[in-house]
């Protein structure tokens, strides 16, 4: 058994675990963090190597089942329309993310009140604004002031990314239709920023890692400062279960490292393992006190899995668009159809996220269209028509919580330490399908208005579970939620959850900005009330 007993033990060193570790460490709280992954240095990224694109289908594949690194755990997604995607490392999925950085809208916190569906959050957009702002400064956000889709935000820390011919082309389409759009907020530096981060050089393919450090990831942003403040970070430390005492408090964490089982005690435990890993850990932590899994007296741990089902609507243009100039996930976005309009036949709405392309291999495999370029006599002709001539409008829908969409424990599958693996069960809801119909039609419209000669639709691609949400939801009623307004488990007073699992509803935007803000709010609460916890 390890003798150290930190005040706080964090499980997971990713987007939220890193932010919380940093925040607590600045207040002099002793923190230890365990992560099953390891450090990934920018020098390990492939984008400056000749065969760089192959990494997208090997060690940088977003699906851990395909990547199959020793630090990964498998996920049974045979009964899920969408595969959960993640990266296991210090920095978590910010290692391979696109750094598109919109916030939840004010309405996203009040969907029950406004639209009569799902549930409200027990806090508001305004409650999170100080933490959004803090996180924007830490992550280093570039953007343009005056975003029409939000109440006025604090000045963006850096100027917006260049749009290039690609972004300017779709902007003309939006303008022609009179639909609002805006340059995306991005956690990508456009000037030198922070600790050695260079300005983006528009090399694209952020999903394969950023060698310049322009794209924020928490291993670069939060962890250096947290470590200097004394946080102890143990890598390749895979947690098996949390052990509780008769007082329902977590007493210890059992984890594997170097092939041995270790026990680590702490006064307070924070779980930050994402919307799949967190319910997996809680459901694997069964005991006499919690026979259905830790903190699961509501029965809601693992339920209400949400993903943001998407459609990629890709237009091909006669003129070259420099489609692979610039960060892949950040061009312009539109929330023109974000809010409920009952005349559309569905509630809530969706985001258009315009994305850029990658290299020639990505194009040959079909890119966002999902359809491989044909082999044979026409191969070169079609390749030339598509490579750097494409423009994708992603339709990212709000995914309403439904209890039949779940993370459970697979009865057979395990990771390399023998820990039972998760199983995802998920189907796309009726409301979402109507939303996708509407979004695909509107995306086609804007692409045609921008001059596309041909449009393809890739609806709900299996490799689309970028955002893992809702499986340990927040609320004030212990019978209808897993954690309280501060992320503290209703059933376990010294256990906090801070990742996407706590989200009550999904919004229709990429979630990292919001879950980091929520995590920093939880950290702030812990700092204020540490004597009572």
């Amino acid at each position, binding site marked *: 058994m390890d003798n150290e007993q930190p005040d706080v033990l964090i499980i997971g060193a990713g987007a939220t675990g890193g932010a919380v570790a940093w925040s607590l460490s600045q207040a002099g709280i002793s923190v230890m963090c365990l992560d099953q992954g390891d450090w990934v240095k920018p020098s390990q990224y492939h984008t400056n190597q000749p065969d760089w694109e192959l990494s997208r289908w090997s060690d940088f594949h977003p699906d851990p089942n395909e990547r199959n690194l020793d630090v990964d755990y498998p996920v049974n997604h045979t009964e899920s329309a969408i595969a959960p995607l993640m990266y296991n490392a210090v920095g978590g999925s910010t290692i391979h993310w696109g750094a598109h950085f919109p916030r939840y809208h*004010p309405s996203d916190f009040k969907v029950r009140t406004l639209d009569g569906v799902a549930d409200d959050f027990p806090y508001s*957009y305004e409650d999170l604004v100080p933490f959004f702002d803090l996180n924007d400064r830490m992550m280093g956000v570039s953007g343009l002031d*005056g975003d029409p889709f939000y109440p006025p935000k604090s000045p963006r820390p850096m100027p917006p990314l*260049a749009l290039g011919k690609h972004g300017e082309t779709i902007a003309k389409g939006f303008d022609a239709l009179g639909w609002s759009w805006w340059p995306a907020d991005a956690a990508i530096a456009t000037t030198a920023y922070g600790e050695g981060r260079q300005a983006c*050089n528009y090399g694209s393919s952020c999903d394969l890692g950023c060698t310049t450090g322009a794209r924020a990831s928490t291993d670069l942003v939060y962890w250096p400062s947290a470590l200097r403040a004394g946080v102890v970070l143990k890598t390749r430390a895979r947690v098996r279960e949390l052990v509780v005492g008769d007082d329902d408090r977590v007493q210890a964490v059992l984890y594997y490292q170097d092939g041995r089982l270790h026990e680590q005690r702490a006064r307070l435990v924070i779980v930050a393992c994402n919307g799949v890993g967190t319910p997996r850990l809680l459901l694997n932590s069964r005991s006499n006190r919690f026979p259905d899994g830790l903190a699961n007296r509501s029965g809601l741990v693992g339920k209400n899995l949400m993903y943001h089902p998407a459609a990629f609507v890709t237009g091909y243009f006669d003129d070259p668009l420099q489609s692979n100039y*610039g960060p892949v996930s950040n061009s312009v976005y539109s929330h023109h159809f974000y809010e409920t309009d009952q005349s559309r036949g569905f509630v809530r709405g969706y985001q258009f996220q315009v994305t850029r392309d990658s290299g020639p291999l990505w194009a040959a495999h079909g890119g966002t269209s999902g359809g491989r370029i044909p082999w044979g006599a026409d191969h070169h002709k079609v390749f030339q028509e598509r490579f750097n001539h494409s423009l994708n409008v992603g339709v990212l829908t709000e995914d309403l919580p439904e209890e039949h969409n779940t993370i459970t424990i697979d009865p057979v599958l395990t990771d390399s330490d023998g820990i039972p693996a998760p199983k995802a069960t998920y189907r796309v809801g009726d409301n979402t399908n109507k939303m996708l119909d509407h979004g695909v039609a509107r995306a086609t419209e804007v692409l045609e208005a921008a001059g596309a000669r041909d449009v393809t639709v890739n609806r709900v691609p299996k490799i689309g579970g970028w955002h893992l949400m809702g499986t340990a939801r927040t609320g004030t009623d212990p019978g209808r939620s897993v954690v309280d307004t501060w992320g503290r488990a209703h059933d376990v007073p010294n256990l906090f959850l801070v990742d996407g699992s706590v989200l009550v509803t999904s919004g229709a935007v990429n979630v990292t900005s919001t879950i980091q803000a929520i995590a920093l709010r939880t950290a702030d609460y812990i700092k204020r009330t540490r004597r009572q916890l």
Partner: protein
Amino acid sequence: MDKFLTDIQKAGLVDVLDLIIPRLGEMPGAGQIVFEYVEAAACGSAATARVVLDTLMAIDAAAGSGYGKPFTEIADTEKVALLEAVEEQRPSLFGEFVDLVYDGYYTDAFVIERLGPDAGKPQPEGRPIALFDPQIVVSVRQLGPRYRTV
């Protein structure tokens, strides 16, 4: 893979690769470019070797049953139709094989050079792009706020 592929199979593989991605102008055919890649990938992975061997066997079987001779001996115009028939009968297998061919072709330095600078590795040079021009948002600013007041 040497021990698995006969000389006839090797010749057949080159033929097939050149039909998947034919030579056109400055762009080489895949037979010249990808053969070594496919061979190395098959030697490094039993699953990849299976894809290559099964594809070649399916092609040979189709050639035997349809034309009564090896694939390499049938007319070029008939070879394409034969591959299309194999693709229709074994879409998953044939798709994996085509993916493998594309992997080798579009990561080959000679091919990348022919495709031009936009096809090259993105780092460390990055891509040249004009800075953001604020004039582009003049119209959309005039549309005003578009968020729901709570």
